[in-house]
Every structure is written in structure tokens, then in C-alpha cells.
């Protein structure tokens, strides 16, 4: 019972989220991007969100991160409602967004500096640099790094705050195919080491199947039309997904 309560406390719960944006060409009408999304993620779970681009996956992550606010609906980290950004929810974007004026080491330290705990936790910086295999690059500036290395720094920077949930917004989307496959295993290794709850947005079905405990494809465009080509394509995509997923993932 106690164990269950702990698990529940670090899980992510999303209920009936709605979010719309003004349409770019016509600011008066609003475009509904998320229409009543609900799901939850158990502690230590690695869940993938897949869906076509523009369906609101990134919007959803920004809402969970607290960077934007919902029109209606509830978001909980454990029992805490989400109202603003916080260090217990890490976010890694497709672009690593490293601060170019800081060295690799100082980028990784950034979360500790921002929370004013650098003095107590300085020894952790080395640990996280080792974790992502960048001990030798502590003094390098971001523009010296390759895409994969930069993304590893971004992961270490997000993980050093020991987030309850790590939100990954297509973090490997900009990498070449080989780096991408290596980084998928890298992220899996980090996850297996630390058992951080992860929510991974991707549009690569291979990646979703390879990495996740569970795949959510809830965030699909509305309104839906059974006879549209989009609908049919989506249907065949999901069928294919179920077929290939088989025993390696539950869908």
C-alpha cells in the first residue's frame, strides 16, 4: 500500500485537457489543438506519444512543462497540480538549446545554479558528465559539439535536477540515422539506470516501438471523418503498428 502511494505520487496524470491557439491567418477564430486529452503515466514508465506533425504533441509537452497554460482540464504531477514550470519536470527539445555562452560543464550545472544548490551538489556534475560520456569535453563550448554530443549535454542538464518526469520532445529528430540509433540506446540506458519517468514525443514509429513501455496515439487531429484518406492512412498505420509491435510493446 505504501509502495503504491509512492508510485502514485510520482506519476503524471492528465485529465480532459483542452488547448486552442488563434489561427495564424485569422486571429479571431481559434484552432483547437488538444480536445479533451486524458491519460496517465505510472512512475518509472517510458511512454511514447506518437502522431502526425501538428497534432499537438509538442503543445501537450509544453503544457505539462508548465510553459503554457490550458484552456481547461487538469494536470497533476503526483497529487500536485501543474501551474508553472518547475525543476521536477525536465524538458529536452529537438534542438538541444544549450546556452552557447557556457561551457559544457557550466551548461550541465545550469539547473543547480538556477536552483541555488550548486555548492552542495557540485560533485554531481562530474557524475552526470560521466553518465553521458562527456568528461573530456567539460571545457568545450557548445558550437564545438556534434549534434549527438550536444543532445547528450541537454539530457545531462535536464537529468541533474532529478526530475520526476522527463519530457522529451523529439529529442533525436535532428540527428542522422546512425547517431539516432545509438542515442536511442543511450536514452534507454539512462532510463534503466535511473528509472526516471519519461514521456517521449516522436514521429518515428520504430523509435517508439524500440523504446517505450507504452505508446499513446491519443493526440490525433479532429474532427474525424471515417471516409477521409487521412483516416484510412492512420488506420492502416496503427494496424501495422499493432502487427509489428507484437510482443515487444503493448499498444
Amino acid at each position, binding site marked *: 500500500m505504501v509502495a503504491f502511494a509512492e508510485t502514485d505520487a510520482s506519476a503524471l496524470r492528465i485529465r480532459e485537457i483542452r488547448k486552442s491557439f488563434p489561427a495564424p491567418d485569422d486571429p479571431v477564430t481559434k484552432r483547437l489543438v488538444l480536445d479533451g486529452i486524458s491519460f496517465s503515466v505510472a512512475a518509472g514508465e517510458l511512454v511514447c506519444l506518437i502522431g502526425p506533425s501538428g497534432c499537438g504533441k509538442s503543445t501537450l509537452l509544453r503544457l505539462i*512543462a508548465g510553459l503554457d497554460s490550458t484552456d481547461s482540464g487538469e494536470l497533476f504531477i503526483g497529487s500536485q497540480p501543474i501551474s508553472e*514550470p518547475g525543476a521536477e519536470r525536465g524538458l529536452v527539445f529537438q534542438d538541444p538549446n544549450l546556452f*552557447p*555562452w*557556457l561551457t559544457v560543464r557550466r551548461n550541465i550545472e545550469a539547473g543547480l545554479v*538556477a*536552483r541555488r544548490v550548486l555548492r552542495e551538489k557540485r560533485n554531481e556534475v562530474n557524475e552526470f558528465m560521466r553518465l553521458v560520456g562527456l568528461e573530456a569535453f567539460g571545457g568545450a*563550448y*557548445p558550437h564545438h559539439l556534434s549534434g549527438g554530443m550536444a543532445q547528450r549535454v541537454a539530457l545531462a542538464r535536464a537529468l541533474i535536477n532529478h526530475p520526476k518526469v522527463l519530457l522529451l520532445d523529439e529529442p533525436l529528430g535532428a540527428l542522422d540515422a546512425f547517431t539516432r540509433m545509438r542515442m536511442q540506446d543511450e536514452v534507454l540506458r539512462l532510463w534503466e539506470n535511473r528509472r526516471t519517468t519519461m514521456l517521449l514525443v516522436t514521429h518515428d514509429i520504430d523509435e517508439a516501438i524500440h523504446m517505450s513501455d507504452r505508446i499513446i496515439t491519443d493526440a490525433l487531429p479532429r474532427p474525424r471523418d471515417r471516409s477521409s484518406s487521412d483516416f484510412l492512412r492512420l488506420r492502416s498505420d496503427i494496424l501495422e503498428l499493432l502487427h509489428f509491435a507484437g510482443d515487444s510493446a503493448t499498444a
Partner: protein
Amino acid sequence: MNRAAIQSTLAGTEPERDATELTRHGSTLSWRVQWAVPLAALFDLAIHLLFSKRAPAVETHSYSLLMYEIIGVSIVLNIVQRFWMPLRSWMRHMCPIFTAAILLFGVWDVVTLGFQMLPLPYFPGPAAVLRSLISDRGLLLDSTLHSLALLVSGYAVGLLVGLVSGICIGWSGPIRYWGMPLLKVVGPIPATAWIPLAMVISPSAFVSSAGLIALAVWFPVTMLTASGISNTRASYLDVARTLGAGRTYLIFRVAIPAAVPNIFIGLFMGLGASFLTLVVAESVGVKSGLGWYVSWAQGWAEYSKVYAALIIMAAFFSTVMTLLFKVRDRVLVWQKGTIKW
């Protein structure tokens, strides 16, 4: 200094020539590079001695002494560079420039002293200017120090106020709403246009001139700082917020570092404006400094002193400018292209 030129230099587009040149050339200096400077100086000396009958002996004496010194120093350097690599690459880079500069002195000598193609007293020869430089060195040094004091105090005030107002305008919406129109209307007025007002308001000429210089620096620094801060990439701010950053961190550790390249453009534009304002203020109100010296010497029709002061000004201002470039290179070491390992 031209704004476009500053901006292109600031963008860090200078080619990385140092490393390539070292590998491309051999380890010895060709004889042409070695002897260009002493030969040019010898040439100048010969020309001058040819026409020296027309110049006072004391001018000829110091000018020839200078040429002998150049010849002597360059020969010593030619010997030292055989044993000292850094000097060699520096000489390889600088010798052509020095040679051209020395030859220009010869041309100047020919045109003025030699064939007297330009009217006197407005266009004295190089020897006369050198003589003024030497005989008036005390007053020139004193003027330079006064100019420096005025420049530093005015620039520092303008810089500080400009940074603060730029950060406030860049970061806060309400401050931008009220501050930006003021900035747009008042800023473009050249600082020197305020001279009549400054003379009435301020008790001392030094304070009013420093205030004008501060005003000249304040506008570009504020403008560029504000635009740099408000153009901070939103994703940097988002990342910092998900890392647990508060407002202080967002302003001082994200927005300001992100704006630093822009801020430096403002600093360079401000520096150019401050030189201009300094010289004008000194020749109008202040009774000391290089600007004052120039107009004073002009009043006595001692044009050789005017040129002497101009030479000091050129050295002074370009040194200050170079210092700012050094600071920029140090601060912006993280930027691609400005890095020199």
C-alpha cells in the same frame, strides 16, 4: 568610425589567417621582407637630406635621428627574429605595412618640403611636425591625459546608465511602452547639439562635457542592449524555466549573456560617438585636452602642432578602440569565429 564597418567586424567574419599563414610560409624571412623597412627609411633620409637646405637645422636633425633609429631598430629586429619565432611571424605580417607608411613620409616630404606644392603654413613637412611633437611633448601629454580622464568618465557613466536602461526597456513591457518613444525621439539628436543647453545647466565645463559624452554613449548602448535582450531566443528562456530558474536567473544568466554580442555593437558605436563628442566639447568649452590643443594651435596658425595633435589623437583613439576589441574577444570567446586558440 563607420557603423557598417564596425558591424561587419563585430560579426566576427574576419578570416582566420594567423594559423594558415604560419604553415604556408617557410621558417625564414625573405630578404625582401627583412630589408624593406630599413631601405625605406634610408630612402626617406636621402630625400630629406637632399632638400634639407630649406628646413631649419633643428628639424632636419630630429627627423634624421628618427630615420636612423628606424634603420637601427629594424636591423636589430632582423637579427633577433632569427632566434625568436613569434617576432618573425609578427614581422612577416607587419613589415609591408610599416614600409608603406615610411614611404608615405617620403612622399609627404617631397610634396611639401621638396617641391612646395602645397601652401604654407597649412601643410608643413613631416620634419616640422615631428619637431612640434618633440618640443610640445609636455603639453601634448597633459592634453592627452585630460582627454583620457574626460573620455573615461563620460563613457563609464553613459555605459552604466545605458546598460541599465537598455536592460529595463528590453525586459519589461511597461517600461518599453513608456521608454521606447522617449528613446526614439531624444536618442537620435547628436550629443553635440545639446552643447548650448549643457553650458547653461552645468556648473563646470568638465561635468557638462562628460555629460554630453555620456549622452552620446547612452543612446546606442541602450538601443542595442534593449534589442538584444528582447530578442533573446524564447527557447533559451523556456529551457531555463524548466530547469527551475527564477526571474533573476532569466535576466542575468540568460537574457544578458544572450544580448552581449549586441551590447558590444552598441559599445563600439558609442565609442565612435564619444570620440566625436569629446573633440567637439573640448574645442568649444573645456580649456584642456587634445580637442582644445588643436583649436588653440590653429588659432596661432601653428599647423605643425595641429598635425602633431592629430597624430596623437589617431594613436590615442585607435588604442582605445583596440582595447575594446580585445575585451570583446575575451568576453565573446564562446562565439563561433571570434575564437583564437
